[in-house]
């Protein structure tokens, strides 16, 4: 099925908006933050059909209206546990062995 770049009214979508331009931001920010606009993403039900990048108003879960550019349609989550970390792979095996050795030495000494 082709991925549509258009949402229909009522679909669950995400919009992106610029909340503060650099000039409107908090004072005393480090330069790498101060030079960027403050961006915001809100999810909700599309109030109209729109294409990605077009302006759209969504109705959020609490019933608020938020307007921004359509940035995702039916946005989900793809975060994972990731691959095993080689530096940690032997921790369990080695510590259990150490524990067994130490406990054996303790009972031998009794």
């Amino acid at each position, binding site marked *: 099925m082709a991925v549509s770049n258009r949402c229909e009214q009522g679909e669950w979508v995400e919009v992106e908006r610029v909340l503060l331009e650099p*000039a409107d*931001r908090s004072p005393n920010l*480090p330069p790498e933050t101060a030079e960027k606009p403050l*961006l915001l993403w809100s999810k909700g039900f599309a109030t109209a059909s729109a294409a990605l990048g077009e302006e759209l108003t969504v109705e959020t*879960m609490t019933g608020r209206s938020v307007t921004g550019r359509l940035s995702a349609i039916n946005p989900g989550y793809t975060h994972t546990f990731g691959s*095993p970390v080689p530096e940690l792979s032997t921790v369990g095996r080695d*510590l259990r062995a150490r524990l067994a050795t130490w406990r054996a030495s303790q009972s031998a000494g009794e």
Partner: protein
Amino acid sequence: MASAFDQIMARKGEIMLRALGMDYGDFERSPIAFDYEGMMEAHGYSIDQIIAIQAAAGVGNTPLLELRNITDLVRSYSEPGHGARIFVKDEAANMAGSFKDRRASMSIHAAAEKGYAGVIAATSGNYGAAVASQAARHNLNCIICQEAFDSAHVGQPEIIEKSRICEAFGAEVVQMTVGPELFSHMLELLDETGYFAASLYSTFGISGIETLGYEVANEMMALTGAPPTHVVITHAGGGNTTGTARGLRRAGAHGTEVISASVDLSGLHMASDRDFNRKSFTTGHTGFGVPFATWPDRADVPRNAARALRYMDRYLTVTQGEVFYVTEALAKLEGLERGPAGNTAMAAAISLARDLPADATVVVQETEYTGAGKHHWAQLNFAREQGIEVRLGDPRENKPGTAIVIPEKPEQIRAIDFDLVRLRSSYVRNALSHAPEGYVPTADDIAFLAQDTNSDPEFVEKTIATLKEA
């Protein structure tokens, strides 16, 4: 012309007065001192009422487990007669997976009782999940504002998971890029919706944590015949230390040493778009721990109920690599797979226990849930993608944002004492700098500062004199 940020911040007092349903002005005594205990008692809930409210909310009464394998591991390399018994309070067993449920349950109870239609909190941490979960049980609308991404829309897996879980509980999640304007936007939303401010730092939230210290003291009495000799507490904004210590005292555990612990993230700027994804811990770190200890009233409420310096006897820092190592060890040796940030105190406790006599008892008073994203593997894989070196070696070579050094053996886990005198002096300097120029502290102010820094009037006076000379 004032910026949009300045305009909304100028209305903070007025918006928060309505959103908290409580006038903090009632407790002010001077530009420096206020009636802390009076403020804490103003909500009128006794500890027994809080326990009952939390029981109804599905919160608290979590298992206290003795970690016999970790204890023996520590004893295997301690001096003879050393190696304290280590216990953990498995707070991940709370409904939304962390001790934050205790905080949220009281805030949401208050919001419902006061008749608010919804709640708002600004948090990228476990507190968001806790607020969302409790709000769902009370049929309250919920908005969670999260600092989630850098300006390239990249976020740490740990925070992405926290966005997901809030949505799973039906909350509206507002995800933002890096910056303190998270709080100014929260004010705008409070103003727009008329919802309750479920602040992390309200008296409701902190009172809700008192049951944790209370349970720890009573359960250790039942298990060992005495309160714990030491309690180790992961420290960020100060609520965990404050609430737990107050609960211990309520249960009569006045002799228990209260030890706060944070991951050392020195050198990374908390408001930096560049450093944001180079912090491999999103909480429990010195980037919150130090500024909130030295100036608690930087919070989103007029007076912060979390005042960690009042209660901490020691403040230990551990490295990122030490905490990730301990997280792996805890799963493998004790069958407890838990989130890494909550294991900060565990790493500190393993270091501490080694130097204590074998009959001492050390309680780590929390764990947090784990899952996709919120896992030490996910955080380490992400760190590598950000160009951070991950390697085995001496944890002393760990450099936040540059290198995460995983210990090769448990003996290498050595927590470092943060100088409390430095923290206390810094707090006094901050308190003076927030008073009007030329204001001369009174005897009442000195007494307040001594209490708030867990020091004495002589120390405060000496510090003020030194500051004047400088």
